């Protein structure tokens, strides 16, 4: 879901109570938000409920959403807040979700044949991604799969843009290291 698609759907929902747009918004964000919420509360069932709450909130607040500039980021911020609320309600110990997130990348867990890369190479890639520090992997996922801008990720996770840049560099470098070099240029 791109930021501009998101904005258009929100407008249709706010102005016309457009249920088809609401469904499209829900199904478009569902998987990404489940993963994001899961990375905070570490429970699949709770994540499902949180995402449902997020969309309840979107429906109830739809008219005021017309004033929200970056609705794409807004949806992630609401998901983060509701996830943290739920954690506190469950009286779990507070923890830094950024450093303990369990987020996984969906787009690289593929059948190697569909990827058209060798199985061995695929193994190395997924291993490299799995071995990224949680914070690094979460940032990489939010940028790559969820299409958030660096400054959005920084705002969402309350980090500096420089940190996001640095973590993205680390992710790419680590992944690159898993690709075997067969060529040395003289």
């Amino acid at each position, binding site marked *: 879901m791109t930021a501009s698609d998101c904005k258009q759907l929100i407008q249709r929902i706010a102005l016309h*109570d457009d249920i088809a747009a609401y469904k499209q918004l829900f199904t*478009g964000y569902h998987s990404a938000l489940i993963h994001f919420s899961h990375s905070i509360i570490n429970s699949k069932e709770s994540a499902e409920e949180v995402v449902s709450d997020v969309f309840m909130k979107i429906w109830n607040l739809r008219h005021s959403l017309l004033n929200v500039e970056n609705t794409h980021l807004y949806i992630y911020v609401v998901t983060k807040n509701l996830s943290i609320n739920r954690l506190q309600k469950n009286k779990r110990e507070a923890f830094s979700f950024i450093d303990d997130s369990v987020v996984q990348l969906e787009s690289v867990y593929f059948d190697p044949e569909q990827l058209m890369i060798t199985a061995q190479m695929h193994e190395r890639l997924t291993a490299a991604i799995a071995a990224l520090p949680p914070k690094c992997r979460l940032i990489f996922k939010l940028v790559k799969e969820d299409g958030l801008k660096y400054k959005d990720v920084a705002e969402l996770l309350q980090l500096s843009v420089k940190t996001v840049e640095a973590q993205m560099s*680390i992710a*790419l470098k680590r992944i690159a290291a898993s690709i075997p070099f*067969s*060529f040395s*240029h003289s």
Partner: protein
Amino acid sequence: MPQNQFWNLLAKKFAGEITPSEVEELDILVRQNPDLLFTAQHIQDLWELKQKPNNASAEEAFAKHLTRIEQSADWPGHYPESSSPEKISSPTRKKKIFAFASLIAITALAFYFFTPLTNSAPVAEAHVTEISTKAGSRTKMVLPDSSVVWLNAGSKISYNPNFGIGKREVQLSGEAFFDVQHSSVPFYLNTGNIKIKVLGTAFNVKGYPNEKTVETSLVRGSLEITSPSRPGEKFILKPNEKLVILNQSSRTKTNQAKKQNIVILSELTLTTDSTIIETAWVQNQLIFHDETFEAVARKMERWYNVRIDIKDENLGQKKVGGGPFENETVEQALNALRLAFNFNFTKNENTIVITR
């Protein structure tokens, strides 16, 4: 540290965060470290992967969500089953639906490979991937199907995002050696006025726009060459054969005179230690064998990134052989040739003038 800066800029490029001045900086870094291109290519392929859309579970979750939200006071009645979002038509949506339909029709593989998570990412609008080398540099790259391509100096290869869907197709300008991964998906290469079809094979193609001929040399496997200028004809190459086809542009110039020479089938040329001359450049070797001095000069220009001017026409048509040159400078290579073929040269910065 330039390496860290490279990863930083590459990440920004993929994330769409890169500024025009950073694009230039990245470009320079890649030119200084051509090996990085290979890795960058792989990471780009990875970046462009989209996850399998799990519409079933999203639909299911929405149905569950509906039972909650229908309790809301302002929910406008029941959700009508028939008005699924797929029916909403806008020009881009229609295009996308059409694109999806064709993709699914062609191959299930394509469906998984290119279907985005949401319905929003454009399928057909993704950019063409283009890799090029300047004179004086060569590089090796891997295509999305794991086929390996060595790109000689001053060459360019490109493929569009549907590479691998129904067919694998690349465009080449210049010279490249292909080691094509075997697959039932046919691989097509277009260069100059010929089209080459292969299934899995290793071959070299030399089709510089400013040269008179397009040469295809087959090392192993088999391939099929067609040319719009010779409709209805198919040339099947066997290993160790080479096909030379005159470029359309130069053919019109030479007119009738050389018509019998438009297509030449010959064997690959081996040196005494059985190096194949046509593909020696892949091993970083520059070899000349029974070529006109003019052709040798064009090769050296690309290899060393220099300009070579042959002032004597007879000398230009003279057949020359020599090499292999590996780490020699252009002066050393010319000095070696000079011993056998008797000419003089002067070098001024990047321009070399050859006289008798």
